[in-house]
Each structure stands twice: as C-alpha cells, then as structure tokens.
C-alpha cells in the first residue's frame, strides 16, 4: 500500500500512454485532470492486489469513445464519478475500491480522479495489461464475468443504465450511446469482487506505468536512449524508426480509425512501414510483411524524447520509433485470440507472438 500524489501523475500518465499502444487518450489531458483532482482532494491510496480483501466490491471506471474527439472536447470532470455513483445505486452495495479497466494516458488516470473525489482506494491492476478499443476485450470476459450492470454518463448530466445479455452486446449498445453523447462518455462496468480481481486482472499495472514513465524521463535527463529503456522494461523489440509520410484518420462507428505510413531513417533507410489502428494500433507491417499485431503491444514513441505518441498525435513529418512487446500470456489462448486477435478485427494473417 502506498500513497500517490499529484507529483507522480506525470510519470504515470506517460508510462500508461506507452502501454496504451496509441489509444487510451492523451497523456497531457490525463495528467492535468488527475493533478487537479489530487491537489483538490489529496493523495490516493494505491493497493497491491494481494492486499485486497476477497469480499471487496471493486468497480472500474473509464472513458470510452474516440481519442481524437477527446483532444477537442475535453471532459467536464465529473462524468466518471457520476457513472461510478450510478453503478453503486444500481447494485445497492457500497463500492469499496476502484481500478483501471485499461492502461492509457487518460484511462489509467481516470480512476485516480474518481478515487480522489469519492475517497476510494485504487487497486494497482488493470483488466488488459494494455489498451484495447472495445469494452468486451478484458480478461474477465474470458472467465464469463458480465460487463453489466453498467452505467454511462456524459458532460451534460445524462446517465444511462445498461443490462445486456453478454459483453458483445454491452459494447454494441454502449457504443451507440457514446456516439450520441458526442463520441465521448464515461462508463462504469464489470463489478468485481476482491477475489475476482486477484484471479482475473493484470496485477501491478500502475506501478509498471510509473516505472516506464520514470525510466523514459530519467533516460532523457541523463542523455541515455529513452526508447531503449522503454523497450527493455517491456521486454519488447524495436520494429522500425522512421518519419510519418501519410496519415489517414476518420471518426467512424464511434472509433478513431486509420492508417499511418512511415519512411525509414537510419538503419531502416529505404524501408516502408504501415500502422493500422482502431483507437489502438492493431497491425504493424514492414515492407508489406506483418511484423506485429494484436494482442501484442505495438507502441509508438518519439525517436528522440521517448515520449509516447498516441494515434491522434500522429502527424505528417513526425519522427517515431515503433516497438512491439509481448501481451499478457492469457491473451494468447485460442479463446482469447477469438476475442482480441487479428481475425476479430478483420485481418487474415496468423498471429505470430512477439518475444
């Protein structure tokens, strides 16, 4: 157990944006929101998974929609808290803890905001070990845990309750609501017990985010290669270094979808690279050949500073390095690949694990 205050949010948001694999929201906006909440309400208690009582009532909270939209239409600030309170009413039980659903510049810090405002301890874990675009794509789904009862809230004060037959329907209906809300909404879902958290979640995500964020910053300060530090911490490998020569992006069906094309520099001079994304990076190709894909992590970092570059920040001329890192091993089973593998997103290649 330890306390997290606003001075640590910058490193956490940076590291979370690396694990966010291009999605999960802008780390700058995430950091500002969390710093503000922690300054106002005081530090948040971060609990290790094994410190959690089995009968704890843990309710995650997150933002869903298109990150490109959140770059313009920033939150009002109380959406996440409202969604979590609405779940509490719905289940008729007091929520004892909250937790991140995914790693991402905004979504790793959103639970900090709710935890600070509601005085709840936060569990050091998440449901993916990275970010995925759809809300059924969490490890608890593989064990039959239901997303609903779930709630959604927007900046206007609208709140909606969903009861769905399965998690795919939860995504489908929630996505339609999120689009009406302006492609951004707060969601609170997957009510879990302490015991389920221990069995089904990825432990230590916030600590990993902080180590990544600190490692990149310190490497930069000490004139070491921040990209190499991040690669090592993720046990990943470098795929490409280049410059973005074309970026296509559209807000479609409630997601930010698109492709980025890169021309190689340095040791990759003469090579081309392509990234396809749906909020998060899905597939990476070098000279036409798939070199990494979901569910492994495809992370894009600024070549010089090591800062994570989210998909909404990709733009013409930007110089980046792409790395791939192994996902949580539980994502590599046949059942998991059906949920989050290349085939689900319409790609026909065989998944080739990294590392």
């Amino acid at each position, binding site marked *: 157990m330890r306390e997290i205050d606003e001075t640590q949010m910058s490193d956490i948001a940076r590291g979370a944006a690396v694990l966010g694999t291009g999605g999960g929201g802008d780390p*700058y*906006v995430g950091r*500002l*929101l969390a710093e*503000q909440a922690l300054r106002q309400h005081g530090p948040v208690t971060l609990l290790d998974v094994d410190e959690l009582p089995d009968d704890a009532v843990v309710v995650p909270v997150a933002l869903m929609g*298109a990150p*490109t*939209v959140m*770059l*313009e*239409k*920033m*939150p*009002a*600030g*109380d959406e996440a808290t409202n969604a979590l309170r609405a779940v509490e009413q719905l289940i008729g039980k007091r929520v004892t803890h909250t937790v991140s659903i995914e790693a991402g510049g905004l979504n790793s810090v959103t639970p900090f905001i709710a935890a600070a405002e509601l005085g709840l301890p936060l569990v050091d874990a998440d449901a993916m070990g990275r970010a995925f675009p759809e809300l059924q794509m969490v490890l608890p789904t593989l064990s039959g845990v239901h997303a609903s009862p779930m709630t959604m809230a927007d*900046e*206007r*004060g609208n709140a909606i309750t969903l009861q769905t037959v399965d998690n795919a329907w939860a995504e489908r209906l929630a996505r339609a609501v999120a689009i009406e809300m*302006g*492609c951004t909404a707060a969601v609170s879902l997957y009510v879990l017990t302490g015991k389920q958290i221990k069995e089904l979640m990825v432990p230590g995500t916030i600590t990993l985010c902080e180590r990544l964020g600190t490692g990149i910053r310190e490497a930069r300060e000490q*004139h070491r290669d921040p990209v190499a530090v991040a690669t090592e911490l993720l046990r990943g490998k470098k795929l490409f*270094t280049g410059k973005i020569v*074309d*970026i*296509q*992006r*559209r*807000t479609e069906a409630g997601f930010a979808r698109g492709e980025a094309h890169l021309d190689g*520099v*340095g*040791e990759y*001079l003469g090579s081309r690279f392509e990234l396809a994304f749906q909020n998060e990076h899905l597939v990476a190709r070098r000279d036409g050949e798939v070199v990494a894909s979901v569910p492994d992590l495809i992370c894009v970092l*600024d*070549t*010089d*500073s090591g*800062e994570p*570059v989210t998909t*909404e*920040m990709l*733009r*013409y*001329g*930007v*110089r*980046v390095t792409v790395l791939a890192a192994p996902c949580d091993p539980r994502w590599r089973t046949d059942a998991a690949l059906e949920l989050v593998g290349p085939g689900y997103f319409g790609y026909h290649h065989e998944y080739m694990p990294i590392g």
Partner: protein
Amino acid sequence: MMRIGIDVGGTNTDAVLMNGSSVLAATKTHTTEDVTSGIVSALRQLREAASFDPGDVAAVMIGTTHFINALVEGKNLTPTAAIRFGLPATRALPPLVDWPRRLVDVLGGHSYLCHGGHEYDGRQISPFDEREFREVLDKVADAGARSIAVSSVFSPINAEFELRAAQIVDSEYPELSVSLSHEIGRMGLLGRENATIINAALRDLADHVTSGLSRTVAEAGISAPVYLSQNDGTLMDIDYARRYPVATFASGPTNSMRGAAFLSGEQDCAVVDVGGTTTDVGILQSGFPREASTDVAVAGVQTNFRMPDVLSIGIGGGSLVRSLDGRVEVGPGSVGYALTERALLFGGDTLTATDVAAAAGLIQLGDNDRVAGLDPAMVRASLESIATRTAETVDRMRTSAEPVPVVVVGGGGFLVPDNLAGASAVLRPEHGSVANAIGAAIAQVGGEVDRVFSVDPGSRDSVLDAARQEATDRAIAAGARPDSVSIVDIEEVPLAYLPGNATRIRVKAVGNLALGGNNA
C-alpha cells in the same frame, strides 16, 4: 535583387546586405531595449560598410526573438482575457490551465467559459448564448483586459462560434482586439487555445514593434516592403505580423539553420550555433530544419506549433569558466552582452570561454597579454569539456548512424574544434557569425491551401495530389524557385456533418526565394 536581412537577438542585432546570393556587407551591433535604435545603427553601419542607394533595396527581412523573449520574461504583455465556447463540456480544464503562475498573473488571469462549441459530427454542444457572452464581455472590459483570445471546441471543423463572437466584439467593444483560435492553430483544443492566448497577449507589443520597424526602415530612406520571418522560415508581411505575432516565435533557430545551409551549401548536416550564452544544435534534412515531433512548451506554455527541433546547452562565448577541485566547469552562467567589459581580454576580472580560446590561440581579440599567464592544463581542460559536450549534443540530435558534417555558425564558433568527435567535417562558412541575419535575408516563400474538398471513396490520393500541386503552384507564384519547393505540412480533417465526404485539407508548400542575379 538587393535586400537587407536583420536579426534582432537578445544580445546582438546583426544586419547583412545581399545582392542575389552574394553578401555585400555584414555588421554586428548591440540590441537596444527599444529594438529600433539598434536597427538604426545596424542600417547606418551597413551604409558605411558598402555604399548603396537605399532606393535599390527590394526588401527588408527581419527575424526577431523579441516576441518570444517578451513571453519568457513576462514583459510588455497586453492584459488578455481567454474565452472558450464549450460548456457544459471542457469545464474541468478551463483556459490558462497549466500556465506558469507568473504569466497568468501578468496577463490578469481572466479565463471564461461560455456555452457552445461543436461536437465531432457538427452538432452544437450548446447553442450560442448571447446574454452569457455579453456578460462575460462586460466583466472582461471591467477587469481591464484589452485583448481577447476566443476558442471554441472543434472550431477547425466549424468556426461559427468564434466568428459570431468576433462580430459582437467588433461592433460593441471596438477597443478590444480579438484573436480567433481557428485562424491560429490546428486540432487539439488546449494547444490551439494556448497559441491564441499568446497571440492576444502580444498584440500591443506587435503593434509597437511593427510600426517602429516600418518607421525606422522608412527613415533610412528605404521604401521597400518590410517582412518578418515566420517559424517555418517563410516570410509574412508586416501587417500580418501585427495581427499574428505568435507566428514569428521560433524564427531565430530557423533563420540560423537556414543561414548555415545557405552559407555552407550543405543539405544534410548538423548546425551548431554558438552565441554568447547558449549553443543551439539543430539538424538540416534536405536543406530544411528538422522539426520537433511532439508538442513543445514555450516559456512553460504547452503549444502545438511546428517548431524546429533544437537542443540548447549553456555554452557560449561569454560562458564563465571555473576550476572546482581540479575539475574545470564551463557555463551555464555567462557574462552575456557584458563580455567586452567583464572578460579578462577586455580588462575585466572574469574568466570566460572567450579568454580561454584566446589563450589557446584560437582567436585574436582584445589584449592577449592578459590571458598569457593562464594555466595551460586548465585551458586545455576547458576546451576539451566544450568539445565533448558539443559533440554529445550533436550526437543526440543526429538520426543517421554515420558521422555527419557539422556547420558552425554564430559569434562564438571558435569554441568548436576542427576535430569534433562524430563529425565527418567541421565547416566554418564565411559570414557564419551573422548566419541568422542571412537566414532572414534568404527567407523562403510559402504557398498554402486550406479549404474543404470532396473526397469520394477511392479518390483520396488524387485529391491530395491536387492539393499538393495547388500549394506548390502558389509557392511558385509567390516567388519560389520551382525546383526548391517541397511540402512541409498536410492536415486532413474529415467534416462528418457535411454531405459528400467533405474534408478540410490544409497543405503548405515552401520553397527558396528566386533571388535573381548570380546563382539564382
């Protein structure tokens, strides 16, 4: 074509007279508080160095760090109100959030939120509330703000809120000047809004400086148009600079790197610009300064400008040299513009990097006898430390694995050794000490396309090609040499609320000015 390039830096005002691509005269003088008297003496010195008829000057191009320095120092800023249309969204992070306290205080801290703005698909978040906006304007006027920055959520998609706000201000509060975010920045509300607030805060100073520049040049008998350098190395006319001073922000490093490229003839190299206090290292790729890829903070304010990627270290001609426990430390402290009073060479009592260089015979300056007694081991150690740190900085900036040519410019260039580690060659072009002024004089011309295109399925490539061509044609029409034009920016914003796959496409092409005369 004869023209004058002027660089108004923090310490020196440099001026060059160029005809075609040859440098006829170059001068260096102190920058003055009011900017203009420094320029007056620079112009006078130019005429002494090369007699020319002021009537033959075709253009005066000025680069200045004056605006960025005003922000860094928090001086001469206009009391500014920031008004954002976006409620009920965005209220968690109001305008001026994350600005340094000091700057917020200088500006007056006037930050307001109004209902309005757009959703991604063109719906309004809330309708325009005229009463609410007028109440805000009353408060703004009462609080003594004289300049307004207006932003609206998704204004690059639909600027209607910002335009309507400007209309109301213009007709009811004509004494307030207005800066609109959709005219200044790109997608990303906070970065665009911050740039707009900076612009609004610089409006009075821009008025003052631009009218001073026009007057000074006219008084020197030069009737040619006066231009200012923009961040991307292209020129803007003085009236544009008056309204959009934020666009001149990063012109200093851009000019020094382009000047270095011009003087050395190198297209791909590192540029090391050694000034009085700092050394800036940048990279030229195909003759263009490499840009920073992530958002950059200017004076502690996060913005999303496109700026050259420059790394600065605290080493310059005026750097203090100190011996500590047998180790030698150079910089980051500096005597700056007081070099000619405080350095040993000039009779002062402070050991500077320039003194050390003179002791090693790298430069003839001042009274060499005064540095003759310096400990040779200390002299060697300080120069080695300068060389090592410069080489490290170049190493961090370069992206290729092979050694790169290094072009050294700036008044303190003698501090960089000929055998710099990691450099394939160290080049010291003639007139390198006034590279910034030369960068201004050879400024580029741009061509821009910014409008809504219909992008039918499968037609994106051809639409983009057409937009690129149009931007290129415009750059050529504006005076760019056709073989030098390249595309520096492309931004596509799909407008989901309009029928026919409407997409706002912005393309900027930039090329070298066709100079006339030799080598043009």
